[in-house]
């Protein structure tokens, strides 16, 4: 018999729970200002032990009341530039995920 634990967060229900030892992960979120990226950032910010580092790549920094969450860092990046230029930005900022 497979047993699962789910939890609620505000109006959201049936959300997954992850093992405590799942920690220290890194994520890159593109379009963190946008309707999807912004919420991705919020979700990952809820679990700073699990998501040790969240790189937000967008032209402009996310507009968040109170500033970026502590586990997030904004790097200015324009995805309409040439791949080589984008790669330079990632390399220069040591972005690995």
């Amino acid at each position: 018999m497979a047993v699962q634990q789910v939890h609620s967060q505000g109006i959201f229900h049936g959300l997954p729970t992850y093992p405590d030892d799942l920690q220290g992960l890194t994520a890159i979120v593109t379009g963190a200002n946008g309707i999807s990226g912004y919420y991705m950032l919020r979700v990952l910010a809820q679990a700073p032990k699990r998501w040790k580092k969240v790189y937000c790549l967008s032209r402009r920094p996310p507009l968040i009341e109170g500033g970026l969450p502590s586990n997030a860092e904004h790097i200015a990046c324009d995805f309409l530039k040439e791949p080589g230029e984008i790669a330079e930005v990632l390399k220069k900022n040591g972005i690995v995920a």
Partner: protein
Amino acid sequence: MLQTGAKHYGLHLGLIKQPSQEWDPLINIEPNFYFYQEEKLSAYCKTNSVGYDVVMPSSILGAVPDAAMNAAFPLAVYCAVHAYLKRPLEYPGSVSSWQMPQCMSSSMLNAYLEEWAVLAPKAGNQRFNAVDDSLFTWEAAWPLVAGWYGLEWKGPVEDPAAYKERQLPHNPRGYGDKGTVQVRAPMAEWAKRDDVKAAWKEISQQYGLRGNGELQDVDRVFSFLDGSLNRPAPILLTTDKARKLGWHGYVDSVESFLEVFDDFAKIKMIPPVPKVRVQFL
């Protein structure tokens, strides 16, 4: 994690197979950049021995200052102006659209699903639909939304002569008639009315809203809402696949709409929601 969307299923082209399931054949009537993105990502991942997922939301509910496609913002403006002008909240769509079931995809829930898809061992290298798992029609939601603003509401106008009919361009499902859309009162036209513009200017001043009292990009922003209010066919994305793999996320889509409206008010894009009558199941 690549997020594409329900246009993967071709719902923007015409009537599609119901419901939309992740294994449905790709619709290639017109080029679709989602398919191109998936191809590139798949090839990259194969070369680099890394997994990927594709997540496909339907109509995204979220509050940000600028979004290419946002149904909640124009609806909130519609409500706020009707409250200001003390007019009943009139549903502009047809009788059939009033009852049309359509999945909503709250952005917060989509993000929870995407985190899960990346972390759950069995969820790798899959496509997943992302929806609230909450049955939604305007018939059920409209009266509740009107209640938040303390407004009476009016359902669809029944006289067919009041509607302009437009045939959909293609027939992705490959059988039967091409669908038609009935439109009585396009939202973009509503937003350009003098009384509406004047009301919004007043409201903006009163509440210190962004945008200098003027609605921006009216055609783009308001016509997107038409796509939801004037639905020719259901939008049904199944959650069978994700559920079997252990995803059980859920939100009441109407509750989600209210939270998004509140979030819009917090970032000064709409006035505060009066919340005169708030009730959820």
